[in-house]
């Protein structure tokens, strides 16, 4: 509860910070402080020291898993604000509002990590997405930003409609919005399905809608366009913290239902995973813009995170936490550098290795982590996902496909590394690169490597 309340309050504070002061840097520091307070408040609850106790009537349940995720998401946001704060300041006139919206999103994140019923899930998702529509549109004069937000909005509300239909059908079958209920059993003629038809149909619709939110194929279409069109600094946030939260909600929603859904569920999920991996990885190969490449790569990474849903056991949940952190940090790092460049093309990175070796090093570590190269966080994250699937007895061909596409992914990540180190040119750095930023990036890289050497650091939080 701490997280929800404090993030909402922090949002309010940020709204007014824009009225009190017009200094953008001050606003940024207020946001950073608010984030620190938020993390502290959440940690107090994680360790059971202090919490605002509210009788939620079983609508929210605060478990270790969700609370740890909150901590990780807030920390990632803090890192994001520290690294990309300059760009948020320059994103437009309403800096305070952007921060306020980010805090509202975090409020949605903390609801999604603790909901215990479909009503709270719905509200959480809406609180998460509505600010995102606005952030996507924040570059008002830019037609690409306009278009991205309109697309995002139309498709997002369409998927909300689908989700609501799913919720309604489940409600019809079970008479409750609680997460873990068993519907009256109705056998089909073939005896294949145990649950009520309506419930299963509702679950499918909810699955479709959640798949949309986490951009799993074939519901991923909004992702490249929206991530590409949105201002880079907000894409960074959307592609990381928000996406991870989507997965947390996804797994919370479905983990108790796999029994009802029966074996077909796994087949469908496997199909979705393969399609996601295929589209994400293969389409990323020939992109001309790094930003767009990263949005496809985020689809590809989503394919890996879906394995957590596939196996849906304790190990998968642990792995999902690790994956979220490793993926979020790496993506935030790359975007932090990317948005300092003039354009988003590969060539903009040319020669970065020479002119800014520290930045290039940090970016390389981030890219390696995304590619899943050992000794970076990304390796164990991927390993965890696949191992959890293996433990659950998943099919071998799925494993092969996953590893195969992981190999393909290396290609496009390495294009950036190649541009940085092996190509001549001067990187078109637009914003001034301060030594603080460099230090931050190097620290981030060290953090990622640390995650690759001792992932227990994160996972032990889970078992504290």
């Amino acid at each position, binding site marked *: 509860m701490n997280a929800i309340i404090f993030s909402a309050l922090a949002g*309010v504070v940020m*709204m*007014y910070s824009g*009225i009190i002061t017009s200094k953008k840097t001050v606003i940024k520091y207020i946001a950073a402080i608010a984030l620190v307070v938020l993390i502290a408040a959440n940690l107090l609850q994680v360790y059971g020291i202090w919490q605002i106790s509210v009788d939620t009537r079983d609508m929210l349940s605060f478990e270790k898993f969700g609370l740890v995720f909150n901590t990780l998401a807030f920390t990632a946001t803090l890192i994001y604000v520290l690294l990309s704060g300059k760009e948020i300041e320059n994103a437009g006139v309403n800096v305070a509002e952007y921060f306020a919206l980010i805090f509202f999103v975090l409020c949605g994140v903390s609801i999604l990590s603790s909901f215990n019923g479909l009503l709270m899930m719905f509200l959480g998702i809406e609180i998460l997405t509505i600010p995102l529509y606005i952030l996507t549109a924040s570059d008002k004069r830019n037609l690409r930003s306009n278009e991205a937000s309109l697309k995002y909005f139309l498709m997002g509300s369409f998927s909300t409609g689908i989700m609501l239909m799913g919720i309604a059908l489940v409600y019809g079958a079970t008479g409750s919005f609680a997460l873990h209920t068993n519907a009256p059993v109705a056998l089909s003629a073939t005896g294949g399905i145990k649950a009520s038809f309506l419930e299963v149909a509702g679950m499918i619709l909810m699955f479709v809608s959640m798949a949309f939110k986490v951009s799993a194929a074939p519901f991923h279409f909004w992702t490249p366009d929206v991530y590409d069109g949105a201002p880079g600094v907000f894409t960074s946030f959307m592609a990381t913290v928000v996406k991870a939260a989507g997965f947390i909600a996804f797994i919370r929603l479905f983990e108790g239902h796999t029994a009802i859904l029966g074996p077909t569920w796994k087949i469908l999920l496997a199909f979705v995973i393969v399609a996601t991996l295929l589209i994400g990885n293969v389409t990323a190969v020939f992109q001309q813009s790094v930003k767009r490449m990263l949005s496809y790569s985020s689809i590809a990474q989503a394919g890996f995170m879906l394995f957590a849903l596939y196996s849906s056991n304790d190990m998968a949940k642990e792995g999902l936490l690790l994956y979220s952190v490793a993926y979020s940090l790496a993506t935030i790092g790359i975007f932090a550098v990317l948005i300092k460049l003039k354009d988003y093309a590969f060539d903009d990175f040319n020669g970065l290795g020479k002119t800014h070796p520290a930045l290039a090093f940090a970016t390389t570590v981030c890219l390696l982590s995304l590619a899943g190269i050992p000794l970076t966080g990304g390796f164990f994250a991927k390993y965890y996902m696949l191992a959890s699937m293996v433990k659950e007895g998943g099919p071998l061909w799925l494993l092969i496909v996953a590893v195969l596409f992981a190999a393909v992914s290396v290609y496009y990540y390495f294009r950036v590394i190649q541009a940085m180190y092996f190509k001549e040119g001067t990187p078109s750095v637009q914003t001034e690169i301060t030594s603080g930023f460099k230090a931050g990036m190097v620290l981030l890289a060290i953090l990622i490597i640390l995650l690759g050497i001792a992932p227990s650091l994160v996972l032990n939080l889970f078992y504290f």
Partner: protein
Amino acid sequence: MNWPFLLLDAADNNSVANYFPIGIQLIFAAGFVATMIGVSQLLGPKRKTADKLETFASGIENHGDARQPVAIKYFLVAILFVLFDVEVIFFYPYAVNFRELGWSGFGAVLMFVSFFLIGFIYIIKKGALKWED
């Protein structure tokens, strides 16, 4: 439910039939308007001239389309109206249960209102409700 007892049912609390008088009233109102228009059409004299068919603009010659695009700043006000309109909806069930809910309900509503008030003050400070600038 039978036709003759509809009005009797209406006396019974909490049922659809409560709405029967409202329905009758609606029908009567609509019927009255329709009748009046029809009757005036039938009875009134009909003489059509070009001047008569023109839009009446208090004697001034009219020009252009009546549907001029509205200035965009009013739009913001309209949006904010919707938001506050929905807020009022929340008070409706509270008002009905005001006594029973006691202090805890009051606290809840107070919190909600304060959130809205925060929003309202924010909007004012931002100058979103200023019509001229």
